[in-house]
């Protein structure tokens, strides 16, 4: 287990996405925590094909590209102070790593990875201050965490579900840091949904 954790930090994320291995805290652990039989049933009913998994990975990849573009808009806005800019660039870097890992995984599964949209209609006219930019980013991170939360039970492949959980945790950390930067309670509740 130590080896897996170390690998996920040092080696390209692809290793984590595609290697076998024991779940550290898997989606099934959450189901057990919630004592939820119907979740287990849903999992069986959703037993997805590789094609379905590719679909899920590609939707996630689309989200990551949007996040990367959004941080670019934020970074270029001229509204961010140095410490906030540093955070934005670091978070954008994480999203780039997610995108690389997802792209590799789609290819490995024989799929065609989606590419970034030609343009994103971000609400740029509403971004007038640093706070606006942080709030915008926080909303996207919350949405991303939530999207992974909704995707994890849909994966047919447990390793992919685990990898998605790892990304979800990262998005949730971003969200918490950004909430903190806004002066809001960084962790508003015990569950993310």
């Amino acid at each position: 287990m130590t080896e897996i954790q170390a690998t996920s930090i040092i080696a390209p994320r692809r290793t984590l996405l595609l290697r076998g291995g024991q779940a550290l805290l898997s989606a099934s652990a959450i189901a057990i925590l919630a004592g939820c039989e119907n979740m287990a049933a849903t999992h069986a009913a959703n037993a997805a094909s590789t094609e379905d998994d590719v679909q899920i990975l590609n939707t996630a990849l689309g989200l990551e590209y949007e996040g990367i573009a959004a941080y670019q808009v934020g970074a270029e806005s001229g509204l961010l102070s140095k410490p906030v800019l540093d955070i934005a660039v670091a978070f954008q870097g994480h999203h780039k790593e997610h995108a690389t890992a997802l792209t590799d995984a789609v290819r490995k599964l024989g799929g065609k990875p989606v590419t970034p949209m030609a343009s994103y209609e971000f609400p740029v006219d509403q971004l007038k201050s640093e706070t606006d930019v942080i709030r915008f980013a926080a909303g996207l991170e919350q949405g991303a965490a939530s999207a992974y939360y909704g995707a994890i039970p849909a994966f047919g492949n447990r390793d992919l579900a685990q990898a998605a959980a790892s990304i979800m945790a990262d998005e949730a950390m971003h969200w918490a840091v950004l909430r903190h930067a806004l002066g809001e309670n960084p962790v508003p509740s015990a569950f993310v949904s």
Partner: protein
Amino acid sequence: MTNHLPTIDRRRPARRLGLLAGIGLALILAAAPARAEGDPVAGEAIYKRCGGCHSIDRNRVGPKHEGLFGRKAGSVPGFDYSKAMRQSGIVWDDATLDRFLENPRAVVPGTKMTYAGVKDAQERADLIAYLKQATKPAAP
């Protein structure tokens, strides 16, 4: 943040109980067949779960929701839908949304909306009540 810690420690047992009760309640609600009245204010908070992929007024990873009610599924111009969604024959209203949002991939197999669904019937009712208000096409 540190000032939260003592509170958590003191209240932990009670909170746990509340939590378990909450989960039990959620399961009961999820199992209840009757569809309750939706609360749009609660629904707006639930819509945050959709906000990774959707906005009311712009296409993103998912299509914009403006003008949703009464619209044929898969019909927003400029959005690259799955074949499954375009050919689903669905027209969006309270009932079709309720079914789709409970388990999107079962109702439209092959959909790009790779989202497990909103299992709680009350939450779906709230969400639909919110969508009904928020997706009204902007007045000309």
